[in-house]
Structures are given as C-alpha cells and as structure tokens.
C-alpha cells in the first residue's frame, strides 16, 4: 500500500455526473438486496444522524489551552515525562505507559507545559492531567516520528508500536488496543470484526471516517490482521449507511481478505457482542472474552488511526468528533485535538439558546458532563448538546411496574429487567446476580428507554452492580 501523509483522503463534495450516478445506483441496489443480519431484541430510537451525516470532517483551530488527562483509557494511568515549563512539539510523547494495560500520551499541539494537576472528567472525580498552553504562531505540523513499514514488522513489534502510539478503542470503550491484539493463551483469533455500526443516535463520525479515511482504514485493518494473525476481516456497517458499504466494497482490493457487510439498523448493534452475533452468529460466553469465540473487535476509527499513525510511528493526538444535538447551531464532524475543552468546541459550533445536558459520546450510553471544562479525551466520539428538558419531562412520574414485558423484548441479551428492577427496589442485590445474571448487563439503556412506567432500570442496575462489586471485594479481603 502506498504511503500517504495526508490525514484525510478527500473526495468530499457530493459527486455530480456519471460517477455520482453510479454511486447512487450502487447504494440503491444495496438497499434492495442487502441482508438483514442482526441480533435478538433491541430498540429503534430516533437517530437525527441526518444533521451531520453529510458534513465532511473539518479541522478546528486550537484552543488556548489543552487539558490531557493521564487516564483516558481502561487500565493504569500514564506517567508524565515532562516538567512544568517544558516546551513540547506536536506529537512528542509527554507521558509514558509503565504497565502492559496502559498507553502513553502525546502532545496534541506545540506549546509549553503550564501545569500538571487535577482536571474535571466526565465521570465526575477529578484526575491528574497535563495542562498544555498552545503556541498559536508555531507550525502545527507533526514533526515527530519516522517512516517505517508495518508490512515488514513482526506481530510482536506491531503490537508494541500500537501501544507506543497510545491507541485505545475510539468507539467509546477506550480499552488499550494492543491488549486486545494479544489473544489469551490457548485462544486463536480467526476473524477480525471491524465495527462501523455507530448505533448511537446523533453520531456520524465513524460514517465519515469510512467515507473519507478509507485508505487509512484499510491499512489499519491489514496491520491488525497481521498483529492478531486473523484470517479475515469483516467490516460491519448498519444499513442506514449503505453508501459507506458501497464505497468500501468498491475500494477494497480484490486480493485482500476483507469484506464489508450491512447489518440491520438497531440499537445496540454496535455493542461487540451484538455485532458478533449479527455477523457470525456466535455468542461470546457469559463472563468471557470475544477471543473465546476467536474474534477480535475494533472500531473503524481506531483502525483508521492505526493505519495513519503506525507507518509514521506517531502517537494519537487527535480524533474525529461529531458535535451535534438540538442545542447546536452548526452541527458537524470535526478533527479535534485531544484535550480540547468542551466549552471551546461548543463555542466553535455555536450554541442555540439555553443548554440542557451536554453528553460525551452518544445519548444512550454517553455521560453528561457537570462542567464544560471537561476535555475531549481519546474515547469521546461525540458531543451531544441537548436543550433543557421541560420540568414535567424531567420529573416524569414513575409508576409501578405494570409487567408489560417491553423491557424483556428490548434487552439485547435477554435479561429480565422487570424482575431485576423489582429486586433492586427490594435491595436484593445478591439475588439479582445469582439468579438473574445481572453481571451480564452492559448498561446499554434499552430497558430504561422503553419502560412506560419510567422506572430508571439502567440506573438501578448500575448501582446494584457496584454494590455487588464492593461486596465481593470486601469478601475477598476478609478471606486473605
């Protein structure tokens, strides 16, 4: 594959003429004849993807100050290797990983380290972060890193360089990518599932990445195939993005073991367990890993960055973010430097009227921020700004469970949220786990979304799970 320095291979404008017509025909053909692979249950929330789906990825100016939390991923926090007052160049490592389940951080802009201290996060508690004052006049070209060819590297070296690049799951999971490349002992990965579902409402960043960063994505897939030693890769895309499927199919070289497949548009199709079920009809065993069924799942954004960064041995310093929602004046998809405060991002797109909730990620599983000083981190796929909800909607009356069964037919893993909700109200947390498999719940929010009694089921389960975790920890400590 040819080496390419530009981040975006841009054929952005809607195409006119014959090639545009062929493309539209292709998509129309797919719409008629694609399969409807999917998982059981699930929901169909209103998506509002049309607000940003045709907005090409644009660059934004740098904020005056970037805030780079040291823990933006699952695992151990990175350790700073810069001092206050030190000048750094865009792309330079500023924190390193001192553990296998950790990733380094890189300077998202050329500037000077102003401080290392606490910063607000979406999750609530403040965490250690590096404050970087940006030199606006400086060239923001990435000068760091050198060219190399992943095709010639060993799997082990590739995995190491993925960690060095600071790559984590950009779909929202934020799990260090190199860890997933390592199948546990005794497991063989045969299939790489590339997640282009983007099932959360509002978000379109993955859609744009598939259309605009196709070369980088395909290169990333080849790198991941080599690292995981998988035989083939399947790109799963929800059928509300058939243009992306058609585009990918046209661009995938015939000799590569990569296919692009449409799956039904249904939330939470993008959850890895659901996508594996839809594409391969395999079920990840309860409590197990995707590697147990021989599969590794990576988000398209992660692989596009992998394809972009690894050949240049650079680090992850920016990502595509969809900024949308009813309170946003000019919604769109933006290439945002890591550490950009949400406030700056909203200033750039304009806020229309009063702000209600501001959600990082999608509205189904994302987190509402308590402060607009929270920065964009590696896992932030979207910033969704909602309007204030009317009083009566916020204080929606909670009725008793009327056993309508809607939650049972929504739960993608076939739990019984109705029963779990009653047990949670009775504080029978242990029974919830022992008899009704609460630990399998991944908090997708389908049950709370459909509940006509407005019972905050997902919230109940989150609390119950954390109480069970604490109880288990307590129990283990006692035994030691």
């Amino acid at each position, binding site marked *: 594959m040819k080496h390419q320095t530009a981040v975006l291979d841009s054929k952005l404008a809607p195409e006119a003429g014959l090639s545009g017509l062929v493309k539209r025909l292709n998509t129309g053909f797919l719409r008629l004849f694609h399969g409807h692979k999917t998982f059981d249950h699930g929901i169909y929330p209103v998506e509002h993807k049309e607000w940003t789906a045709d907005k090409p990825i644009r660059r934004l100016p740098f904020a005056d100050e970037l805030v780079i939390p040291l823990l933006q991923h699952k695992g151990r926090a990175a350790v700073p290797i810069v001092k206050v007052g030190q000048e750094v160049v865009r792309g330079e490592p500023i924190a390193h990983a001192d553990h296998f389940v950790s990733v380094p951080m890189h300077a998202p802009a050329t500037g000077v380290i102003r401080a290392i201290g606490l910063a607000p996060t979406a999750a609530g508690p403040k965490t250690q972060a590096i404050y970087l004052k940006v030199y606006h006049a400086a060239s923001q070209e990435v000068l760091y890193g050198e060219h190399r060819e992943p095709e010639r590297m060993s799997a082990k070296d590739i995995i190491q360089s993925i960690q060095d690049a600071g790559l984590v799951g950009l779909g929202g999971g934020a799990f260090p990518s190199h860890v997933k490349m390592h199948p546990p002992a005794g497991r063989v990965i045969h299939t790489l599932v590339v997640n282009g579902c983007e099932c959360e409402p509002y978000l379109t960043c993955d859609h744009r990445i598939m259309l605009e960063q196709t070369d980088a994505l395909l290169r990333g897939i080849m790198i991941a195939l080599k690292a995981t030693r998988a035989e083939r890769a399947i790109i799963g895309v929800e059928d509300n993005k058939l243009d992306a499927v058609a585009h990918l199919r046209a661009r995938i070289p015939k000799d590569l073991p990569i296919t692009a497949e449409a799956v039904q548009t249904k939330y939470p199709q993008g959850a890895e367990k659901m996508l594996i079920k839809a594409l391969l009809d395999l*079920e990840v065993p309860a409590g197990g890993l995707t590697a147990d069924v021989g599969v590794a799942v990576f988000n398209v954004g992660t692989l596009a960055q992998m394809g972009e960064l690894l050949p240049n041995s650079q680090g992850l310093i920016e990502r595509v973010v969809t900024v949308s929602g009813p309170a946003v004046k000019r919604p769109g998809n933006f290439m945002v430097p890591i550490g950009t405060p949400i406030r700056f991002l909203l200033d750039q797109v304009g806020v229309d009227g009063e702000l209600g909730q501001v959600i990082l990620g999608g509205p189904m599983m994302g987190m509402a921020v308590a402060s607009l000083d929270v920065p964009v981190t590696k896992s932030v796929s979207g910033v969704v700004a909602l309007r204030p*909800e009317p009083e009566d909607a916020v204080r929606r009356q909670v009725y008793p469970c009327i056993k309508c*069964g809607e939650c*049972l037919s929504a739960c993608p893993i076939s739990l019984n949220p109705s029963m779990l909700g009653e047990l949670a109200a009775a504080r029978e947390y242990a029974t919830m786990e022992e008899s009704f498999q609460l630990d399998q719940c991944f*908090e997708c929010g389908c049950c709370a979304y459909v509940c006509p009694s407005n019972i905050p089921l997902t919230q109940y389960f989150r609390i119950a799970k954390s109480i069970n975790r604490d109880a288990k920890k307590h129990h283990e400590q006692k035994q030691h």
Partner: protein
Amino acid sequence: MDKGIEIRTSPHLKRVISVDKIMRTVVLALLPICAFAVYQFGLSALLLLLTTTGVAMWTEWFFARLSGKGNTLADWSVVITGLLLGLTLPPGFPLWMAAVAAFVGVALGKALFGGLGYNVMNPALVGRAFVQAAFPVAITTWTPAFAPGRFMELIPSTLTLPFMQPNPVKDWVAGLHLDGWSGATPLAIQKFQHIEAPIADAFSGMIAGSAGETSALLILICGLWLAWQRMLDWRIPVSVLAGAALMALPFWLMDSGHYPSPWFVLSSGGLMLAAWFMASDMVASPVTARGVVIYGLFIGSLTVIIRLFGGLVEGVMYAILLGNALGPLISSWTQPRVYGTSKKS
C-alpha cells in the same frame, strides 16, 4: 454558557409512551364497545357502565388516600376496570349490585395488593366473580337487545333498591311482545338444547348477553386497533382464541350435534372481550414471550372445558382468574436464555 447545564445518568433518551398513555388508549378502544352496548340495551346499560366506572374510581381514590399514595386516578387504569366490569354484567343488573361488584373488585382485587402493578388478578373479574357468587339469579337474568323504547325507559331491575332482590323482569319482557324470547343466551341454548345460534348473529352482536359481550366483530376490531397501536400484546388474545378453538375442535368433530363448533365457541359469550381486553391485562399476565402463549392457550382451553363439562354456561372468567394466578409461575418457568449462557436464568 454552562450555568444551568443538567446532569443525569444514561440513557438520556426516553420513549414517550407512559403508563397513563397506555391506559388512556385502552379506554379509548373500549369506548366503541360501550357505545354499542348502550345502543343495544339502552339507558340501563349506560347507567350500569357509569355506576361501575364511578364506584371503581371512587374506591381507587379512597384507598389511595387511605394509604397516602396521592392521586392514583391519573394513571387511568381504574377506568378500564370500571368499564370492563360494566361490560361483563347483564344490562338489567341492579345498580346497587354493580356498585358492590366495582367496590369489591377494586378494593379486594387491587388496592389490598398495593394498587396498580401489584394485583395478582384482573380486578374487574374479581368483582364479577364476587357478584356471581353473591347474586346468582340477577347475574343470569338476561333481557332482550333492541327492546323498543330502550332509550325512554329503564329495565325494571336496574333501579332495585339496595339490599333488595331485583324487581322481576318477566312481565316487562312479556310486555315487549317479542317472538321466541326465552330469556337465555345463545351459549345456554347451545349448552342445554344443543341449538347453535346463527354465527353471523353472534358475531355481529344481534343476540342477548352481557352489556358488552355480544358483538364479537366490534370487539375484534377494537382489539386489533389496540394491538396495532402496540398497546396490547397480540400474542395473548391470539393464543386464547387458538386454545379455545383447538380444544373445541375434536369434540365438535366427534359429535357436531351435541358440541358447539369452534366458530360458535369463538363468537359467543364473553370469550372475545375476555381474550382481547381481560386476559391481556399486562399486570396479571406473564412477562415472558413464551409465557404469554402458554398462559393464553391455558385460558382458552380451560374456558371450553368449563363450558362443555362444567356446571356453568360461561367459563372464561374463572379460566382467566386461574390463568392470572398461574402467571408468576409461568413467568418463572419461561425465563429467556441469556446471551452467552446455555442455561436459563
């Protein structure tokens, strides 16, 4: 900019259908059936429906107040109970007895269990079962449909004084000069004389029966609309009706002169109303997908068994009450298999 920003936990989206909306829609679906009952039986049916609904609402309000729950009338569920109860009673049923039925249904069938969501059985049927036992004569006294002057005068038994036996209606019916009126419902005629009423009449409601149990066609249309609105689990009525038809079929094939045809079973008595509006009561039916099918088949087949072999003419009420009682057990038997596990939770 971030002055008033709100924080809640995910999911941040919510479907807008709420319990009161569901209940209001069910009430809406019941209104045409009530209107037809009034058209058929006149002022008495209207007063009957108003009484059961009014008393049911008062009882709900009274117990909610007693337990300090605030106003639970706003969830509209008690209106359904009141209307359904009125529809299952004979049109000339004494109003004071109807009031007793409504009070017992809501008080014993719902409030004592903790109100909406906690009742084990359908409150309307609990009320009806009570008066079936308490006033066996009044509840089997039928009056003809489309009596002339039904909008001008009441059926004499309607205004019976409290704690009195109902005023006899025999003379009043005789005064109507109807040919061939026997005072029995098609179900009873079939059961004891083995003569089936024409299916077309039973289906369209041109027969005697409880206030709202007579037009199977209208009930079917209203029920289908409700299912189409996704406010009703269509699997319940379908499996109730299938259970009844399947149970009736072999007997009819063996001796069609003695046993009713499946068509007659489906279109007669209270089966249609019960299948679409009472067995489908969300609270008292199982929650699992396979559970509701078992529950429906059980109710349908038990109804036919009671009709054919029991002492009662109509069995759907007891079949549903028994089905309700079995609901939690059926639910726990039919827990779905959780993703990634081989066993049932």
